[in-house]
């Protein structure tokens, strides 16, 4: 699979409680000119191969490890998908130096406890807020043109959030965490970038 410079693998929990931050990541990455990619819609017995291919097709990957608590459904379990996919990305980056991975967390120093193998890695701490996610994406990347500002991205975020129910309705989806809604939201965010930031 060809590697696209503008492709970023977004590794986040698919969880209604994470909806605001999900929209914040889509907004911030799109404002930077990225095309986000996620494992939404990847099912079946070759899922792992396809996830690995997706990571390999992206020059960058963002791994949000803020959801470390047990989920609410029985049997209550922590989520291992995000750290597992981070492991895939780290292994890939070991062999392919052009791949760069970033760890995001909501709570400072928690990563040292939850995943001490990453000691020495600076996580981007977003405090569990929309503004925090946008701020930390700006700390991780500088765009080729003029850097969009946090207030500009907040404006884009609010507009994306306002339109999200209509995107879901048109997709006939009950959740924002479906492949179609994800891709439509990404295109919506890119449209907002074009509208608010132009070609800069």
């Amino acid at each position: 699979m060809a590697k696209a410079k503008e492709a970023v693998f977004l590794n986040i929990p698919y969880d209604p409680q994470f909806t605001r931050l999900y929209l914040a990541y889509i907004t911030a990455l799109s404002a930077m000119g990225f095309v986000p990619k996620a494992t939404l819609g990847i099912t079946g017995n070759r899922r792992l191969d396809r996830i690995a291919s997706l990571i390999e097709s992206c020059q960058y990957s963002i791994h949000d490890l803020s959801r470390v608590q047990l989920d609410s459904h029985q049997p209550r379990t922590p989520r291992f998908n995000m750290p597992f996919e981070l492991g895939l990305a780290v292994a890939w980056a070991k062999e392919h130096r052009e791949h760069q991975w970033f760890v995001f967390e909501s709570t400072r120093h928690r990563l040292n406890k939850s995943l001490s193998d990453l000691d020495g890695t600076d996580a981007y701490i977003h405090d569990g807020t929309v503004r925090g996610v946008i701020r930390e994406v700006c700390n991780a990347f500088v765009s080729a043109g003029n850097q969009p500002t946090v207030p500009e991205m907040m404006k884009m975020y609010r507009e994306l959030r306002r339109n999200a129910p209509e995107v879901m309705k048109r997709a006939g989806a009950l959740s924002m965490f479906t492949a179609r809604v994800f891709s439509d939201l990404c295109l919506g965010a890119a449209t907002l970038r074009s509208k608010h930031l132009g070609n800069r």
Partner: protein
Amino acid sequence: MRAPVKLDFKPLSLEQTAKELGIPRKRALKIMEMFGVEGASRNGRRVSRRPHTAKTHSRSAKASR
């Protein structure tokens, strides 16, 4: 904290973004219109967001009615 990574690419056009996301053209145009880019015109070429005031007889002005 490491220095921010300087990105060395320009954002894709909206049409290219839709293609990269695997969104069919017709659906992509509807999404673009929903988010306020009226230039998602029928021939697939995005026109300026600025309202056409001087030449109201232009093709794009007619198309937007």
